[in-house]
Structure formats: structure tokens, C-alpha cells
């Protein structure tokens, strides 16, 4: 009796899931970017938060510079890495972004004190420095969580 052999190049479920996991893992492996990127991100946040405590027009100028820096950073990343992911998109890493946003908002509120209240100027400077450090540390943590997420999920 002749048996019919069906040849298909479509992967079985296990192989297909392995392909998905491998494709995502390769995305994470190519994620080598310089520390300078996180330092620049921290510097941008420091300027944005610290500058918010300055009187006009300096608060507007520092905000404009920091937003321009952010746009340039996004452009640089897209050109170098070839893909982009919003900080709030990945299901697990987004919680790091939410945490960082909370810290930055709180520091921004502190920075407003010298501008809209009678707080000393150094409060805004300290808030800016703390925001910068939070940005650098938060950026590294976010990327570590995202990398792990790419490895773990075959969703």
C-alpha cells in the first residue's frame, strides 16, 4: 500500500513558538547602545525639571532645549537601531516608565516652588539633579526589564 507523504514548510506549533521567541530574542541581542544615550536622557530630564524652577523666559528656553534634545535623541535611536518602542508600550517595562514619570512629576512640582512660591532657587537645582539621576538609573532599569521581556515572552 502506498502511503501519501505530505510535505509542508509550515512550522509545527512548538517550532513556530520557538521561531517567535528567537525573533524577539534577536531584537534584544542587537540592543547595544552607548551609556552616553542614558546620560543624555538624564541631562535632558535634569534641564527640563531644573529649568521649570527658573523665572520666565529661562523656564521656556530650558523647556524648548530639553524637548529639542528629546526629539534628536529619538531620531538618533531610530537611525542607529532601526526600530522604536515607546517607553509605555511594553507590558512589563511600562511600569518602570510609570514609576519614572511619577518621580519626575513630583520633582517638577518641587521645582515650581521657587518660581511660583517663595522657595529658594537651590531647591529647583537639586530637583533637576535628582531628576537627571532618576532618568539615568530609570533608563538602564527600563532597558534591562525590556530585554528580559523580549527573552521571556512568546506572546
Amino acid at each position: 500500500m502506498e502511503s501519501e507523504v505530505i510535505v509542508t514548510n509550515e512550522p509545527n506549533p512548538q517550532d513556530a513558538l520557538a521561531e517567535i521567541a528567537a525573533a524577539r530574542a534577536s531584537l534584544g541581542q542587537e540592543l547595544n547602545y552607548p551609556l552616553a544615550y542614558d546620560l543624555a536622557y538624564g541631562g535632558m530630564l535634569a534641564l527640563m525639571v531644573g529649568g521649570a524652577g527658573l523665572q520666565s523666559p529661562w523656564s521656556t528656553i530650558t523647556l524648548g532645549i530639553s524637548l529639542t534634545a528629546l526629539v534628536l535623541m529619538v531620531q538618533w535611536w531610530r537611525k542607529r537601531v532601526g526600530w522604536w518602542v515607546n517607553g509605555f508600550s511594553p507590558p512589563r517595562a511600562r511600569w518602570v516608565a510609570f514609576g519614572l514619570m511619577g518621580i519626575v512629576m513630583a520633582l517638577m512640582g518641587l521645582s515650581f516652588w521657587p518660581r511660583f512660591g517663595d522657595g529658594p532657587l537651590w531647591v529647583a537645582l537639586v530637583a533637576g539633579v535628582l531628576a537627571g539621576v532618576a532618568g539615568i538609573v530609570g533608563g538602564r532599569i527600563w532597558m534591562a526589564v525590556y530585554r528580559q521581556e523580549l527573552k521571556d515572552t512568546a506572546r
Partner: protein
Amino acid sequence: MSSAPAFDSVIHAPGRLQICAILSSVDDAEFAMIRDAIKVSDSVLSKHLKQLEEAGYVALSKQAENGRQRTWIALTPAGRKAFAAHVAELQRLATLTAPEPLGQGFAG
């Protein structure tokens, strides 16, 4: 995001599965990056993208960069939903067809 399992033959083909896997992890990705990641030629990737685009699963956009046109690709909401449903179905099928561990199912 959890979806009801649903097999999708457009997504399941080798190549398109990897393309969707990459795109599901990012907001958008550049043509050359995907081509290099899944190790196919420009024409093969273009064919895969055309099929995904016709199914409404990806959106392509051209962006000028240093005087060159670059193509960026993103999964559409329908594409994300279909891919999540397809992966859920693969996971369901994988549990059904998982091989039994050695030493079980034999009473000798």
C-alpha cells in the same frame, strides 16, 4: 493582551511569523532591520509585507532620511490582535501535541 485563540494562515508562514514577532515587540521597525533580522532578501521581505498589508495587518510608511527614502513598518491594531490570537492558538496546540516525557505511558 489576551486574545481568543485563532489560527491565521497569513501570519503562520515562515518569515511572516518572524516579521510579526518583531513588530509585536516594537512600535515600528525599519525595512532593512527586519530584512537583516530574519535573513531574507529585499524581494522576499517585500512579498511577505505585501501579503500582510493586503490582510490589513501592517502599515508601511516612507520617511526621508539623509536624502534617502526609508520604509518603516508597524503592526496595525488588527494585526496585533490577529497575531496575539494566533500565538494563543499555537500555545494551545503546543500543549495538545506536546510529547509525553520518557518513561510515561509505558507499562512494561
